[in-house]
């Protein structure tokens, strides 16, 4: 994935761990925004259904 299938050694490891770290940070802030935007609508839909 992302061309890192065969990544190894110090440089490859840094790239792999970097991808995971960046994804974690993006997901933390991204899902927070998503929760604010669609959270109330989802809860309202669940309650009304």
């Amino acid at each position, binding site marked *: 994935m992302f061309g890192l299938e065969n990544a190894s050694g110090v440089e490859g490891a840094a790239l792999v761990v970097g991808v*995971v770290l960046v*994804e974690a940070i993006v*997901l933390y802030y991204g899902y927070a925004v998503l929760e604010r935007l669609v959270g109330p609508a989802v809860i309202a839909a669940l309650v009304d259904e």
Partner: protein
Amino acid sequence: MTMELFGVAVTLLALFAGFGVLIGLLFGFFGMGGSFLVTPALMVMGYDTTVAVASGLAFVFATAVIATLKHRDLGQVDYKLGVLMIAGTTGGIEVGKIGLHWLQDIGLADTVVSIIYVGLLGGIGAFITYTAMKGNGGGVSHDVDAEVDDHEVPDIAQKIQSYHVPPMVTIRGGISVSLWMILGVAFATGLLSGFLGVGGGFIRMPALFYLIGAPVPIAVGTDLFEIVFSGGIGSFLYAMDGAVNLTIVVPLLAGSALGARVGAASTALVDEDEIKVYFGIMLLLGAIAVAVRKIGMTWEIPSLQMVSLVIIVGAATLVAGAVVLSSVRELRSGTATATNLPE
């Protein structure tokens, strides 16, 4: 024709993302144990033990980053204690990794890791189920606001805390602890991380509280801070050998981060103790699944691999489903409102 994204089959990405939602839901709701299912599940799916452990560790690292970001602003991290824990844990991880590679060389890695998983999952699962059925939540609460009375600290822990082997280190809350105690606890949990691909939080958090005497909120925050480093270092060491599989970690994390938000929100709606017994049973089923898989491999019965996978995913699905259904029921009953939900 198989649809692909980033060169990976969409069905495989969806499978891991879906499993991630389950894991995240359990972690978000119970505050522990979610990642403990990842490595055995990957092993059951047929991944090489080293890849399963390495990818599980990378997943733990990323999950800890997200959880630590939440705790960062709450001032619940003792950085001095955290740095000392990191030093001890790094040594433990390296020894655990060397041990795993050695076992792999002599062809015993899968057997030994499976046996340890069966023992740990079974033991912790039995303990949680027993205490939950007795009416006690079981284990140390991850609720950072929970207050703990002295009588909740076992005698053995009070005895251990009473030893003063110099040099002594003062941690947050003015508590004085032997440096050797901190390093010993860190090394032992690092050993587990390196060997099993788990964060070790299910042992380190109680150890910080019981053996070192750190207050619960500090134990939780420092544990997460420490996992970021131990998980990161462990992932890096395994990634140097090319053992971390991003095809597993990336979708698993995407699903898990979403599930963790739903799970955390559900804690405002559902009483954790009502469901904790199912969590204990799920861990017990996880132990059975790993044992069934090992029996299938030993006796060359391929169908047991599938039975094992069904048990482990089915158990996680049932408990996660119970959390979601209970939350929806509470929302609809009107006993809780959306305003109860955390930001």
